[in-house]
């Protein structure tokens, strides 16, 4: 969304529909934010301006992008708040963020993001700061709003449960590199990359009561000391010499999608 700090390195290409975002002029790119692409971030409290009412923060998107008059925009803010399931929205519009609970703040952020009905909603760990019941509610809300507005959601998360619930396709990344990509059903049922597999195995399960939680040995590398070759190689149970020398190319998975591993676990049957 063009929010990276000055001097950041951006590689590759970003396409929104058929438009190359990086080729756009800064002004056009700024207009894209909110209109075609929206962001909801993980910490809903710090993403809301403490000095302004929640309603105004929703209305201002309509006022700036569409030139809607303030009164009309505030009326629309009430509708958006009620759409995201906030009780008594006509009172809540005039409240300040600190008067909202964690789950309501996240709903308010979603209302802001939806104000202009964007094509793409980027949800950056939308549920990390929330407790389990609220988390489930927010995921259900996102799923229903996706249907209603016909938009796509790009969900960035550590939470495999949220992926299973919301996503169609999943891209597993490690240290900034794509490890495996494919349909959620296929990747979850038959992970071909050792990292994906280890990740799924480390989830708590209801059917393995009393067993120790599986964990991946070691810790994720800091961005400055990513290993040579495959970034996951120092922690990988299957790593060989070739993994230390070169990054594996992406190859087709047996059930569609791609996997980047020298020893893709085709023969493994994960159950």
């Amino acid at each position, binding site marked *: *969304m*063009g*929010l990276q700090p000055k001097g950041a390195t951006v590689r590759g290409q970003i396409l929104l529909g058929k438009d190359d975002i990086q080729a756009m002029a800064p002004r056009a790119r*700024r*207009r*894209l*934010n*909110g*209109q075609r692409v*929206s*962001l909801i*971030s993980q*910490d809903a409290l*710090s*993403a*809301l*301006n*403490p*000095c*302004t009412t929640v309603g105004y923060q929703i209305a*201002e*998107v309509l006022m*700036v*992008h569409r030139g809607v008059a303030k009164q009309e925009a505030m009326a629309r803010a009430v509708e958006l708040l009620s759409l995201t399931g906030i009780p008594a929205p006509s009172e809540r519009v005039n409240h*300040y963020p*600190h*008067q909202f609970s964690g789950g309501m703040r996240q709903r308010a*952020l979603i209302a*802001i993001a939806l104000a202009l009905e964007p094509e793409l909603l980027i949800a950056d760990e939308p549920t990390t700061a929330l407790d389990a019941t609220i988390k489930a509610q927010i995921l259900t809300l996102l799923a229903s709003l996706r249907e209603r507005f016909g938009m796509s959601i790009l969900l960035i998360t550590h939470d495999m449960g949220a992926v299973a619930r919301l996503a169609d396709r999943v891209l597993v990344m490690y240290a900034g590199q794509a490890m495996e990509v494919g349909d959620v059903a296929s990747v979850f049922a038959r992970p071909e990359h050792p990292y994906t597999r280890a990740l799924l195995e480390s989830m708590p399960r209801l059917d393995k009561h009393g067993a120790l939680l599986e964990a991946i040995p070691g810790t994720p590398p800091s961005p400055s000391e990513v290993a040579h070759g495959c970034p996951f190689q120092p922690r990988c149970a299957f790593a060989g010499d070739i993994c230390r020398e070169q990054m594996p190319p992406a190859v087709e998975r047996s059930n569609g999608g791609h996997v980047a591993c020298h020893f893709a676990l085709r023969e493994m049957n994960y159950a």
Partner: protein
Amino acid sequence: MIRVFLRQSVLGLLVVLSALTVTFVLVRFSGDPTSIILPQEATEEQREVLRQQLGLNESLPAQYLTYLGNAAVGNFGRSYFDSEAVTSIVIRHLPNTLVLAGASLALACLFAIPLGVLAAVWRDGVIDRFVQVVAVTGASMPSFWVGLLLIQIFAVGLNLFPTYGTGSPAHLILPAITLAIYVFPSLARLTRSSMLEVLPQSYVMAARAKGMPEARVIGRTVLRNGMVPVLALLALEIGNLIGGAVLTETVFAWEGIGRLAITSIQRRDFPVVQGVVAYVAVGFVFVTMAAEIAIRLVNPKLRHK
């Protein structure tokens, strides 16, 4: 909000009362007024008669109670020298001080706040360096020296403004600039650091993610959130300036409260000194209260606490 108001009122009353008490005691330590009012060759009997007239030979607690009782109804007595009522003397000098304070603060805000904001937005850029240098320079120059320097350059050298005195708008310019230079450094630096604290907050990034133009992000989101400490500092400076900028008023012979206080102290004109302090203390309390309210209007989180 009402509780805040009540608490501030009680605190304010205590501040004014302590100021009255401290001045009452201190002026009486400063010496015997009759030794200044009467010529040196006056006899002890003549002095005694004058003390009796001025009420100075009563016991201190009695004097104190009379003083407080009169002060409560706004009567601070008359000057020892020209018998003019203290209140009317203060009221005559007050507008000059207010005009000077207002002009210099407006001037300081006009430059310090925008420059502080721009310095923070383009951190380490040209404006930032400029503000740092100007702030350090400004803070290192005592105001009486700046005043003399300005007189030397603009009044004596270039003959643009009068050297001293009160009266026309032209008289106002040099003292106002002097005081603005005095206020500028702290104001600009506080604005800058306060903005720097707000800029990395996620709600600033969130505003950009909403597609808000950068000028709106800085002008609305960042400025409003960074304003609280700046308002508090401004209140303090207003309080200082309505107490009279003694040095600046003296250098420019500006007929303000500060100069009135100094002259009266030198002449041991007890009623005038006490009256000036009382009015300034009340003014200070009102400005602080206004600032507390303004801060709550800017920051709703404080409002609900």
